[in-house]
């Protein structure tokens, strides 16, 4: 007998939880502005997130999925991508979406029950939030196929969680992208919990990165609380994809510090100690410490950055709250490019019932 296939999975971390470099940092980390921009984005995502949870608690927002603890994974992806690349997110990757140009009031509109939130200002070709788990992996593969066919130097990036790796769509996307050498990067944000199901009940796999092996594509695991590691490996994967060398799977190890959504109570199924341990590894502290040690950040900058974020979030909330409900006709007007006659009649009835004016 002989071994005819074998694999190994690398784990990469640049900054440890105390902000100490564990490896030679990539070139972009030498640019102080670049580090500060990523930190500011992570801080903004966190302040936005806290505000959104509060809005839900006070009845001003629908069910909301918090991104607490995922900021480095999300911002790292956003920072690595080009505007012309295409993002196919799931539903809590605000850090990536905001970096790309989606507006905070648009995210609030979405969770506030208004489709206009997905008609966002960000890259107009990006996919909207995706609730059916891992189905967006196929959209990213399809987008990549479109770019490959047209010979455009663009890539697609999908993001799903650890639970999503159990879905057929995830495997089908990886397999197909491998077979066609598509310019796509599959991100798995492993936050250890799929609502109440812990990773060890999700899979017997030692890592989620190794799911790439069966598809014949590279897979790597990175510290998802280390924004430098996430950005670096996503950049590498995108460069590889742009060179025509095909897809990559990247698993980012992080932790969902919040409930699954505001409709969930995680204290029912996971020990407080586990969450407290994970909190010590969270992503903002380490980058801040790293920058402070090198004189790139200080309390003054922190206060200014925080104040700016709070103001921006408040403006977004105000804009969201002051956005009137869409007219009843909105249900009909985006169903097809041209509304069929049967629906024209239903539309008229809906307008009458809603009390007159279409707009």
């Amino acid at each position, binding site marked *: 007998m002989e071994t005819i296939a074998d694999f190994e999975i690398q784990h990469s971390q640049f900054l440890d939880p105390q902000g100490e470099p564990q490896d030679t940092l990539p070139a972009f980390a030498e640019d102080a502005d670049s580090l500060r921009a990523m930190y500011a984005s992570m801080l903004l995502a966190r302040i936005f997130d806290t505000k959104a949870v509060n809005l839900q608690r006070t009845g001003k927002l629908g069910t909301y999925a918090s991104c607490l603890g995922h900021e480095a994974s999300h911002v790292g992806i956003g920072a690595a991508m080009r505007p012309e690349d295409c993002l196919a997110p799931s539903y809590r990757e605000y850090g990536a979406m905001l970096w790309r140009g989606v507006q905070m009031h648009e995210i609030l509109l979405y969770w506030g029950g208004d489709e206009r939130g997905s008609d966002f200002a960000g890259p107009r070709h990006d996919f909207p939030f995706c609730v059916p788990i891992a189905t967006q992996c196929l959209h990213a*593969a399809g987008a990549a196929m479109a770019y490959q066919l047209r010979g455009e130097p663009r890539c697609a990036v999908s993001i799903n969680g650890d639970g999503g790796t159990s879905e057929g769509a995830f495997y089908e996307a990886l397999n197909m992208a491998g077979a066609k050498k598509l310019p796509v990067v599959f991100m798995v944000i492993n936050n250890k919990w799929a609502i109440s199901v812990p990773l060890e009940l999700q899979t017997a796999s030692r890592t989620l990165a190794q799911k790439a092996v069966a598809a014949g594509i590279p897979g790597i695991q990175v510290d998802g609380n280390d924004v430098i590691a996430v950005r670096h490996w996503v950049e590498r994967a995108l460069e590889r994809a742009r060179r025509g060398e095909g897809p990559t799977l990247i698993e980012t190890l992080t932790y969902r510090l919040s409930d699954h959504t505001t409709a969930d109570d995680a204290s029912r199924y996971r020990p407080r100690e586990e969450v407290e341990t994970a909190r010590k590894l969270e992503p903002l502290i380490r980058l801040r410490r790293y920058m402070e040690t090198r004189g790139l950040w200080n309390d003054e900058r922190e206060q200014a950055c925080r104040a700016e974020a709070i103001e921006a979030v408040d403006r977004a909330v105000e804009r969201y709250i002051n956005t009137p409900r869409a007219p009843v006709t909105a249900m009909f007007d985006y169903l097809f490019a041209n509304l069929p006659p049967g*629906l024209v009649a239903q539309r008229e009835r809906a307008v009458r019932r809603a009390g007159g004016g279409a707009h």
Partner: protein
Amino acid sequence: MATVTLIEAVTMALAHEMARDERVIVLGEDVGVNGGVFRATAGLQQRFGAERVQDTPLAEAMIAGVSVGMAAQGMRPVAEIQFEGFVFPAVDQIVNHAARLRTRTRGRLQCPMVLRVPYGGGIHAPEHHSDSPEAMFAHMPGIRVVIPSSPARAYGLLLAAIRDPDPVIFFEPKRIYRLQKQEVPDTGEALPLDVCYTLREGDDVTVVTWGAMTYETLKAADQLAGEGVSCEVIDVATLSPLDAETLIESVEKTGRLVIVHEAPQSFGGGAEIAAVVAEHALYSLRTPIRRVAGYDTIMPLFRLESEYMPGVARVIEGIRETLED
């Protein structure tokens, strides 16, 4: 002028549109070198290359999902699902994404894709190769369900489906793929979607059908004509959204309605058509509406399939009963 079968008309439409519009991409299982298990894509890969006619891995959810992704990014994918029995893994992508991408993004993203699905019984096929699930899809808002019943309509409706800016499930009645040849000029002229086609005018009874059952229905109408019964035969062609107006006008003229379909009777396309006519033309009806349909059973394996599918005799029986009521 080309004299072609229904499936040759499908190939002709695909080739025409691929030559006209470089955004059109054909993908699916065995559609490339093999030209499709039914030969619908025969010769296309040789003519347009392996990039535009892509053999995919064997995964229907993937075929549909990748088509959604391509369509959203400006392509016009025409995907083949080999048999209707294998379309179900793709339903997630069709219902949750293709059908609602425009709605969800307020038109920012569109989904101009066609999913070609050979369907129906009568070809002595193995298990899971003979069902008629069109009503399932017709119930889902945001997608068109289009079913041709002749070579000319296969050509014209498929062109229209590919050019349409919204997703279309194009169910191809495999039983009549090679049943009849018809002269179909390759003019690139599409036929309108969302309208019924009146195949035969008549005064005594409106008989509404689609797909392969148009053949049995027209035969039944022929036979009954010999007995002095005048049937108006309407091919629905686009099951959803339904062209209710044509159906209602016809029933207002004839006063009688029979709906013929191969799919199970309950909650089928016939139920919706009966309801629409009852809502709008009840007082024109001189007799109760009747459905001639498959039984509400699992489609049997092929030794019994001719007992399952409504043949000419069952159609005639249904029409006679309606006239005698």
